[in-house]
């Protein structure tokens, strides 16, 4: 376990900020970074960077099968991270935690392996209008290949899922419901437990896209009763290149392998193979070992702070941000009220293009995202081509929100 000087009882954002070396840098001469783009990727605390550095300096070896000391240590690090990640999301067993590259690959794994083995023409898969492209396109590809029918839970004007509509869609007896736990644009935190109960009652399995939920508030797969949960390391203080697919053991056991190659086999003959046991069945080839070590350190870091404390801090900053942004004339916020959302505030500012908004904000050091945020259908729904999105994490402050608002006034002076 990584050590940390943080106590679970005290959340002090200035102490937290000192854990993230990048927050010290200037983006232009004399202009310090105000990082409001954690929904795209979070910054990394020193403990994560150091864990990966230490791995490469002292441990680096390929995992499994090696009998020398380095291989033993690397394998132990790799598997101990799996156990800590399993505990972090409340999984029963570490073997239910599959290492992938990211949320996208996790969802593709389910679509390719479970989908091809269990879906046929005419079967219904229910998605939502607020999905990230990563939870749309894999199912569209499957629909084209197999003739699977896609249906969508609609989004209401205040940015929530229409659960009455969902109830009607369930009469189609879907095989799978796949939805985002938290929208990366609207910030809406969806009532996952209720959706899962409704889906199960109708006989459907459920995949939860946890890319925005697992990094930001406590997620317990057993409490949710999720069948699959996909999330990424890089949005939760970990490195890029490592993601997780959680699946219930019985489901994963019954699924055919995804990619073929080394490590995923029990026995290979010239013309056939027998797959390995879980979780290795789904981990072909040399994995991202240093990144697994980094994600393990990230999970330790977040666990030491406590996800309840992270969520409470983000909620406070987001509530303040929504108040301040609502005072900016000409600004139109997307999504529901603060109580129903996580640390995301997407908006349009008059008819100024989001690229121009983001570029002017950058001159003040404020990093936000501009575009469709990989949710083009959702922007179509609200009849806008793009939006500007500020997002908040455990290291953001109210002062940074003020800098965002000051920057927006500058944008209006130039383009208004």
């Amino acid at each position: 376990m990584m050590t940390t000087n943080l106590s679970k009882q005290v959340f002090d954002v200035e102490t937290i900020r000192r854990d993230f070396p990048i927050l010290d840098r200037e983006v232009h001469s004399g202009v310090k970074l105000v990082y409001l783009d954690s929904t795209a990727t979070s910054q990394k605390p020193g403990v994560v960077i150091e864990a990966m550095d230490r791995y490469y300096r002292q441990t680096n070896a390929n995992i499994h099968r090696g009998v020398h000391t380095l291989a033993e240590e690397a394998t132990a690090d790799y598997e101990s991270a799996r156990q800590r990640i399993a505990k972090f999301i409340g999984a029963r067993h570490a073997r239910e935690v599959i290492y992938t590259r990211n949320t996208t690959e996790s969802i593709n794994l389910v679509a390719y392996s479970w989908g091809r083995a269990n879906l046929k023409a005419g079967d219904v898969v229910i998605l939502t209008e607020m999905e990230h492209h990563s939870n749309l396109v894999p199912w569209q590809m499957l629909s084209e290949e197999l003739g699977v029918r896609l249906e969508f839970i609609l989004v209401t004007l205040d940015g929530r899922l229409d659960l009455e509509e969902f109830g009607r869609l369930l009469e189609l007896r879907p095989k799978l419901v796949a939805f985002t736990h938290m929208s990366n644009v609207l910030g809406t935190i969806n009532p996952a437990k209720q959706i899962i109960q409704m889906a199960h009652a109708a006989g459907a399995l459920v995949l939860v896209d946890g890319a925005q939920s697992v990094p930001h508030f406590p997620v317990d797969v057993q409490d949710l009763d999720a069948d699959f949960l996909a999330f990424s390391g890089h949005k939760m203080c970990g490195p890029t290149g490592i993601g997780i697919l959680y699946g219930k053991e019985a489901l994963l056991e019954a699924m055919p392998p995804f990619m073929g190659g080394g490590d995923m086999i029990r026995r290979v003959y010239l013309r056939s193979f027998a797959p390995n046991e879980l979780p290795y069945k789904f981990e072909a080839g040399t994995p991202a070992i240093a990144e697994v070590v980094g994600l393990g350190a990230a999970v330790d870091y977040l666990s030491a702070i406590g996800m309840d404390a992270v969520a409470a801090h983000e909620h406070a900053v987001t509530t303040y941000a929504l108040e301040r942004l609502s005072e900016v004339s000409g600004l139109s916020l997307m999504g529901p009220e603060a109580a129903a959302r996580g640390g995301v505030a997407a908006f349009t500012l008059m008819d100024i293009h989001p690229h121009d908004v983001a570029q002017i904000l950058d001159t003040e050091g404020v990093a936000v995202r501009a575009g469709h945020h990989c949710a083009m259908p959702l922007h179509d729904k609200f009849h806008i081509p793009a939006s500007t999105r500020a997002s908040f994490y455990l290291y953001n402050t109210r002062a940074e929100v003020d800098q965002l608002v000051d920057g927006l006034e500058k944008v209006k002076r130039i383009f208004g």
Partner: protein
Amino acid sequence: MDDLYREIIIERNRNPQFRGVLDPHDITFADENPLCGDHIRVDLRLDEAGMVKEAAFSGHGCSISQASADLLMESIIGKSLDEVKLLTRQDVLDNLGIELGPVRLKCALLSLKVLKAGAYGLGAASDSLVED
């Protein structure tokens, strides 16, 4: 960075000279920037000699993409299609008079990509049309 918003870009974005749709037209083409969803359509009318007589763009995008499209339309009046096909990314940057990073370069080059795909009569606009 403030150079990025030179007066000409702000002015052309606010008051474009070549914004609109030509109907009928001799050549039309439209495409999107998949990174940001910006969309540009270009319409051309040619004279008997095959020179560009009128040019117009429509669609939506940021100030860089709109100003770039407007300046590009202005620059091709009186040019032959063969000359249009020879336009490069440097011509666009010279029009704007600024340096751009890789992300905003895509904004600036969208109109050239669309224009050249139309001039060549291609089915799709490819990034290779605007690579040096």
